[in-house]
């Protein structure tokens, strides 16, 4: 049996999803008060013991420095690159805390017509990471990765699509998260303030027009400035059927081929999870283990 656990952590809450490779679905989703006390106690119960057999990916909902697009300095290797980013942190990321650990991704070489090397950086206090590692180790968890929610959430959309250029629009609490990919590499992240006028009613036309405009601008930036081609697919990940109706209405305005992501086949049936951003993030984190 091959198990992959995803844990999403913020200050108040820990969301856990456990994926079973053999069953090709999640076997449970759980929610508990923040790390690590409740989890340590829960791990003594039979239901949770499987977590100790899983490879774990932890995703941080509130990293000190959230995922940020920057120019990546030229260096001999990744370690030197990290050091250079830290050294220039004040200027590049406006970091005030000096004792940070960070990691980065790179945009495709093709981006910016090869004239700029950019990538995403995420950073967290070293002390917090050490504490997370020691807590995990102490509880017998096999923690392999720590990442950030944008990358975790994106994995839920990528697992169902194969096109070269694609967009993923995810409904979060009071906002939307737009992720643009080139060959499954994250190239653009935008948080769009958007709140439907009540989940049970259609958003008004002005709101929808405004959102359409913001999406179209993002696609234009990707196509013309980053020079990565035309976004052909747009996938929607929503948490409530009522807002899905709103979004479907909205997508009729855009030329991209649009589809909603159906997670039902991989969700744990018993108990059915509360599908909010924390559960989704923990699911995406677990899928990192599946793809590697």
């Amino acid at each position, binding site marked *: 049996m091959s198990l992959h656990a995803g844990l999403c952590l913020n200050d108040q809450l820990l969301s856990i999803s456990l994926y079973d490779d053999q069953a090709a679905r999640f076997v449970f989703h759980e929610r508990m008060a923040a790390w690590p006390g409740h989890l340590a106690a829960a791990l003594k119960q039979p239901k949770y013991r499987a977590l100790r057999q899983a490879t774990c990916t932890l995703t*941080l909902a509130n990293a000190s420095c959230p995922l940020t697009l920057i120019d990546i300095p030229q260096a001999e290797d*990744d*370690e030197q690159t*990290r*050091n250079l980013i830290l050294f220039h942190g004040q200027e590049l990321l406006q970091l005030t805390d*000096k*004792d940070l*650990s*960070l*990691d*980065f*991704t*790179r945009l*495709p*070489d093709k981006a910016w017509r090869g004239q700029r090397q950019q*990538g*995403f950086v*995420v*950073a*967290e206090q*070293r*002390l917090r*990471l*050490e504490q997370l*590692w*020691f807590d995990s*180790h*102490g509880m017998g968890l096999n*923690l*392999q*990765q*720590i*990442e*950030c929610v944008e*990358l975790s959430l994106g994995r839920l959309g990528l697992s169902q699509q194969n096109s070269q250029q694609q967009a993923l629009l995810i409904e979060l609490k009071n906002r939307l998260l737009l992720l643009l990919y080139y060959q*499954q*590499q*994250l190239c653009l992240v935008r948080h769009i303030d958007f709140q439907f006028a009540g989940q049970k009613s259609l958003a008004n036309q002005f709101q929808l027009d405004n959102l359409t405009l913001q999406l179209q601008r993002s696609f234009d930036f990707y196509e013309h400035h980053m020079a990565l081609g035309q976004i052909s697919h747009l996938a929607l990940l929503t948490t409530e059927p009522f807002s899905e109706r709103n979004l479907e209405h909205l997508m009729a305005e855009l030329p991209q081929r649009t589809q909603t992501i159906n997670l039902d086949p991989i969700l744990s049936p018993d108990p059915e999870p509360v599908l909010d951003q924390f559960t989704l993030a923990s699911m995406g984190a677990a899928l*990192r283990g599946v793809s590697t």
Partner: protein
Amino acid sequence: MKHDVNLLPSLRALAVPFNLTQLSILAAASLGMAAFLVLLGWQTQQQQQHNWQQLQQDVHQLQQLQQRLLSQQGQYRSHPGHPSQADDFAAATQLLTHSLLAHPSGVRISQIDTGQHFQQWHWQGQVERSEQLWQWQQQLSAHQPRLHWLVADLQRQGDSLHFQLQAEMKP
């Protein structure tokens, strides 16, 4: 192409590759003494690029060290009049752990001593270049601003620089 992040290995980005091949604790515990000496010896493998699995091994051994420290603490507590506090102990073990995990490449630590009541700390070892020592001192100082950090000694012996670093609670 690098398209995922993992913050865990970056814990080691600035850390020297070290391999705890020998771990010994000499407790100078006696009825008349309220201090003990922690002696760590290990061999460094500077040429070897350490990976994440190595960190797991290191941490496991560090935890064993912490357990031994705990047992030592129990002995001291059994001694009448010993003022050791749980908070001091927790802070001390955290400091020890951090200093081991976060020291820059090029620094080799040969010995760590704890002073009386976990109020003083001493590190000894070798460094390739003095800048690496200052860098480490700055990191530790940022991490533990309540301590006063001082490079007590730095001497060239042959091809290497031998250092002594100390930290103590600010008055």
